[in-house]
């Protein structure tokens, strides 16, 4: 009986082992055709088949967490950099050597975004940030200074229309104002974040808070949120909004005659301009994978090359993280240049786990408390930061 069990065990084990070298890739819909194309070339050269599986972008992180724990899951997966904190804390992401990429081929923001504790955890391919959409029926020239912004807002705020709207109580959209004058989330020393140094209530952030306050006093509803902003702009009732490039298809469909404008091109005072968060998409390798060498080679030599990155762009037109590809793209597309400028004028959203604490405090009370007038920007931000620091264990 014992022998029988052993034999059966061996049989089942060898059955598992037969499924030899195969790279499993998890990616969202848009990259699937491209990955398959690249995979064919890879198969020819390395004799390794590429199994490209489509997973909803929003599900990749949670599914990966579950699968990787069991030693399963993809060898390569595509993710936005701000998700990596949790995965890295669990030891599930394989770092790349910095020598794997030629840093000068990439925009700094892209590489910084995937850097954590002095290690590179993914190879970036697309960068994006929020930017200003303006309705050309109201505004011919987009604002270049804070004064102009305030003037436009006043001019177009009437009983029925809004001059300027954004999701004001959400740090993601309000951060450009806080950081523009010198606020920051965590201090970045070029290699890692100091999570004990929170700059959301320094002089710069308070100045930014006061600017938001002024904008509200000039007529932006303090409860302005994504839904209100989005529908007002689609109905043509709003002159300027702050939103991400993802909204473009919607606004095209709504038939709005709009223009886009980088927030970084709106100067607040000399040498200081609005600075949003950048989101960076990239390829990562499962630390529990048995095919790490193949996975890294595929990423480095196939999909992160100039041709590879350009092919990705054609399938999924987001600003490429590679400089040469981005230059090629913006040579023919005017909007692409604006997106590029917006993204490289942004700073990467911190990728550390402690960011969750920032979101919950800032979105929960830090911003609301002064936008709704319960307290002054200075008081509200200081309260929020002391809460953030107190929450750190």
């Amino acid at each position: 009986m014992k022998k029988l069990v052993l034999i059966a065990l061996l049989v089942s084990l060898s059955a598992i082992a037969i499924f030899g070298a195969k790279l499993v890739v998890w990616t969202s819909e848009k990259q699937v055709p491209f990955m398959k194309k690249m995979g064919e070339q890879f198969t020819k050269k390395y004799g390794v088949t590429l199994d490209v599986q489509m997973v909803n972008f929003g599900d990749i992180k949670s599914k990966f967490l579950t699968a990787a724990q069991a030693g399963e899951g993809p060898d390569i997966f595509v993710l936005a950099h701000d998700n990596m904190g949790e995965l890295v804390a669990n030891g599930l992401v394989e770092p790349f050597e910095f020598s794997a990429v030629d840093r000068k081929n990439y925009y700094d923001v892209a590489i910084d975004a995937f850097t954590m504790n002095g290690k590179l955890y993914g190879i970036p391919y697309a960068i994006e940030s929020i930017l200003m959409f303006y309705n050309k029926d109201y505004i011919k020239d987009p604002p270049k200074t804070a004064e102009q912004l305030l003037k436009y807002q006043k001019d177009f705020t009437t009983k029925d229309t809004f001059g300027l709207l954004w999701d004001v109580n959400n740090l993601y959209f309000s951060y450009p104002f806080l950081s523009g004058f010198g606020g920051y989330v965590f201090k970045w020393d070029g290699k890692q974040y100091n999570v004990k140094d929170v700059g959301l209530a320094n002089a710069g952030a308070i100045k930014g808070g006061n600017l938001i306050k002024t904008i509200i006093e000039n007529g932006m509803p303090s409860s302005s949120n994504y839904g209100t902003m989005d529908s007002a702009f689609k109905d043509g009732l709003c002159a300027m909004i702050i939103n991400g490039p993802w909204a473009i298809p919607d606004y095209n469909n709504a038939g709005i005659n709009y223009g886009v404008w980088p927030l970084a091109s709106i100067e607040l005072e000399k040498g200081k301009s609005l600075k949003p968060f950048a989101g960076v998409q990239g390829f990562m390798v499962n630390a529990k994978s048995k095919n790490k060498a193949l996975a890294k080679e595929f990423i480095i030599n196939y999909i992160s090359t100039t041709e590879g990155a350009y092919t990705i762009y054609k399938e999924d037109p987001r600003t490429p993280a590679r400089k040469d590809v981005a230059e090629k793209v913006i040579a023919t597309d005017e909007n692409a240049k604006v997106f590029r400028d917006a993204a490289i004028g942004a700073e990467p959203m911190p990728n550390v786990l402690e960011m969750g604490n920032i979101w919950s405090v800032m979105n929960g009370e830090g911003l609301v408390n002064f936008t709704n007038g319960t307290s002054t920007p200075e008081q509200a931000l200081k309260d929020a930061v002391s809460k953030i620091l107190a929450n750190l264990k």
Partner: protein
Amino acid sequence: MNTLKKVLIWLFITVINVLLFWVFFTLLAFGNYGLGIVVGIFLAIADWAVFSKKGYPYRYTLPAMFFLFILTIYPMYYTIKTAFTDYGTGHLFTRDQAIQTLLTDPRFNYEPQEGKTLDFRVYVRYDEKFQPTEDFRILLYDNESIFVTEKLSDIRYDSKGNTINANTRMYKAQDDYINLDSSSYRLIRSVSETTLEPFSARVDNISAIEDSQKIRYSYFYSINDPSVAGNSAFYASVLRQKYIGNLEISYDTLRFRLSDRNIYRKFSETYKKYDILVTTENIGQRNVYKTIVVNKLASRNLTEKDGAFWDYDENGNLVRLEGYVQDIGTGQFEKIFKDPKITGPFIKIFIWTFTYAGLSVLFTFAIGLMLALALNDKGLRGRMIYRTLLILPWAIPAFISVLVWRNGFFNETYGFINKFVVTPLGFEPLKWLNDPFLAKVAVLIVNTWLGFPYMMTVTLGSLQSIPEELYEASSIDGASRFKQFWKITFPLLMVSVAPLLVMSFAFNFNNFVNIYLLTAGNPAMANTNTYAGETDILISYTYKLAFEGGRGQDFGFASAISLIIFVIVAGISYANFKFTKSFEEVSR
């Protein structure tokens, strides 16, 4: 017909057997012994029940028992087990797995900056059919010397059959001869006169390596040589995947591995950073063995704290390497009751959960009862129409009506209440979902809306079962309508409705959907270091902690809270049984 039936039955039994066997072995293969053994035992009993006459009655109860075990008992056991650990973000693997990672993962190798790097060429023995075999030698070289490896030794596999380790030694060539301990190799060159060529050219023309038994290893692959690019598939997917990727080559005290830094194009000096050491501690009379991990390069033991291994980096900072699941006893429960930043929100949520469930029952019952009384009045015309209309909120899926409430009624700018009621009256718009108090009001309004039709239907049924004579008799005695209600209707109603109220309380206690869809627990609660919201009830709080916390997942803590919820709901159910009995006694 009968044969067909028999065949089908046997087919069914075979399929079930095969399926369970497969589950059994897979579970064992993946090290999940407990569940695997239970499945095995079940399989044995199931087969006994099928084949033995004695087991006949169990044929029908066994499937039920099986699913009860898989879907109820095992999850309960697992939750209880998890509640006493720190399982969650940063603590996902067992300590053994963490140690295994530290020992074998290339992430924890050390490549000295000024270490030696060597280029390499692979030589393979071909079989009779001139197919490459997996028997190979590697020729490594730099500007000064040529080395050749010997046969691999100490090949180890993990539980899934992947190679995790292989060792070999390499020897320096002298004038194209290599002397190994037991045999020798000779380098065979395609061009004979070699003395005048520069050294690097002398590697290019080595076409084979021959050992003393005349076994020949022919030139197969080099990364820098396009003429053998056709062999890259076999190299990458077989030789490198199975052996070279995990190969450690020793030469004197030097150790070489395929270099991560050079993207696997060269071998470079690489050392394992960590090793294990078994220590013995004397606790009382017994010797306790403990495996610790040491940093070989710095010869120091790794620090273990907070359920993780830590090591100092080159700047002297303590860095977290790998976390593991750790038994922390009642730590999670202590956290709930001792850490003020967790206790505060927990108690708030606890109280709100009771308030929410209690008020939901009270409001739904009060409104349901009123409507039921009205509908029960014989003077009311069109009762059927009213009744149908009033049941509608119950018939529409909660998913839809909750979203209508959230976006249609409570939106601060466009919502019906603010836009058409509050603002026109000259008030400031109400912050329905952002103000802690108003959000709670909103949650209760929606839950009452969703719940009153149920109460109305239930009460209506009970009202109709109250005998008419009681009212007649009491009105003869001169009782008012009001008195009739309190002395006859209400007590008799309570007999049948009270247990349902308790059930409704228990249901609302865990009414996750309403909270989650309407506010998702928001607005965030101040002064806490967990992800608590003002409208969170215990179950939604648990869900957030376990699956979507902003600071990673915390399964251990979530399990501890679900245990507490379990105790409370079990208590309510027990009380319910008691309660029901006492009411039955009253009505007797």
